[in-house]
């Protein structure tokens, strides 16, 4: 089996990855979370997006409503739909309580993902999921805040380019603090257990 080799990461990606390391430096497997706890919890800034229907969406804290955040792109064939399918399972398992949880997908590929495309993508998994895509400046700021790195891979295929990106799911509590994150493959049941803690 042969394969193409990974392209070298640009300097900007390494800087963001370093920011992620800062977040992770305060993390540990304590506080009863099944994910990696952020200790102390990190207050996240608020970002405003324009949704596909033209309405505004702000990521500010909402009382009694924890938020799950994932950064991906709609052309992503494997990791992103797998994560969104995990969210489907979490939502179904929560039953009526799921209405209190904000499931937010943020595109790291605003060049191809318009707000309409991002929203439609999220809602194909569940009508209550929110899909956001901002301008490049907003995208860069929210990625930096969460320590999310992304890099567009060079690709000469007619089918388009791929994007390497951070794959964690972030759990933000109802005071707007990032409390835990979940590596890809951690399992939807871990996410479910921790969301329940916050409800």
């Amino acid at each position, binding site marked *: 089996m042969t394969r193409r080799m*990974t392209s070298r990461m640009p300097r900007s*990606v390494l800087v963001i990855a370093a920011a992620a390391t800062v977040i992770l430096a305060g993390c540990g497997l304590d506080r009863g979370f099944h994910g990696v706890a952020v200790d102390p919890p990190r207050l996240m800034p608020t970002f405003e997006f324009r949704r596909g229907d033209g309405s505004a969406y702000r990521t500010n804290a909402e009382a009694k409503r924890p938020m799950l955040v994932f950064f991906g792109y709609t*052309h992503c064939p*494997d*990791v992103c739909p797998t994560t969104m399918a995990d969210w489907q399972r979490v939502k179904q398992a929560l039953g009526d309580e799921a209405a209190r949880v904000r499931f937010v997908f943020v595109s790291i590929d605003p060049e191809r993902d318009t707000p309409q495309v991002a929203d439609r*993508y999220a809602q194909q998994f569940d009508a209550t999921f929110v899909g956001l895509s901002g301008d490049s400046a907003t995208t860069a700021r929210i990625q930096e805040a969460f320590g999310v790195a992304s890099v567009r891979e060079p690709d000469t295929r007619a*089918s388009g380019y791929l994007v390497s990106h951070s*794959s964690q799911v972030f759990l933000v509590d109802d005071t707007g603090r990032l409390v835990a994150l979940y590596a890809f493959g951690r399992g939807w049941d871990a996410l479910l257990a921790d969301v329940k803690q916050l409800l």
Partner: protein
Amino acid sequence: MISRLVISRLVQPLRTTPWIGLLAATMMGCATTQDPTADGPLRVTDAWVRVTNVNQSGAAYMTIENRDSGVVWISTVSTTSARAADMHETMRMDGAMAGMVHMTQLDSLSIAPGNRATLAPGGTHIMLTGLVRAFAEGDTLPLALTLTDGRTTDVRAIVRAQQP
């Protein structure tokens, strides 16, 4: 060297104990709704793709067993349901880039005789680019796996909302 390491991780030897083999065959029969590949060099089971909208990308997953007497190399995947079908592997990075994932296109996939390759979410998969229509749960999506010697195995992947 790297590619050989990947192969060794992907391809798990089959158990040879007769009764375990019989049990495994029985279980595979339960989990598979059809087996159009029974007489070819490859036996493909549990092929599935996730529910996907038109023009989007998707991935096909399956277990591929080499029933031939020698190593086989899958070099091409084709389908009428998407603009392109390529073999990819999702790689998780570590060190300073921990948490990042990126995909690497595979030129071919080799399977030793008697071994099987598992294509699963977060690992090796067949990337489908530009699906020609929406695929709903219960639909099937045709694929053809072609070996370097030209032999082709037809596969019908079942569309599912969740991994079986």
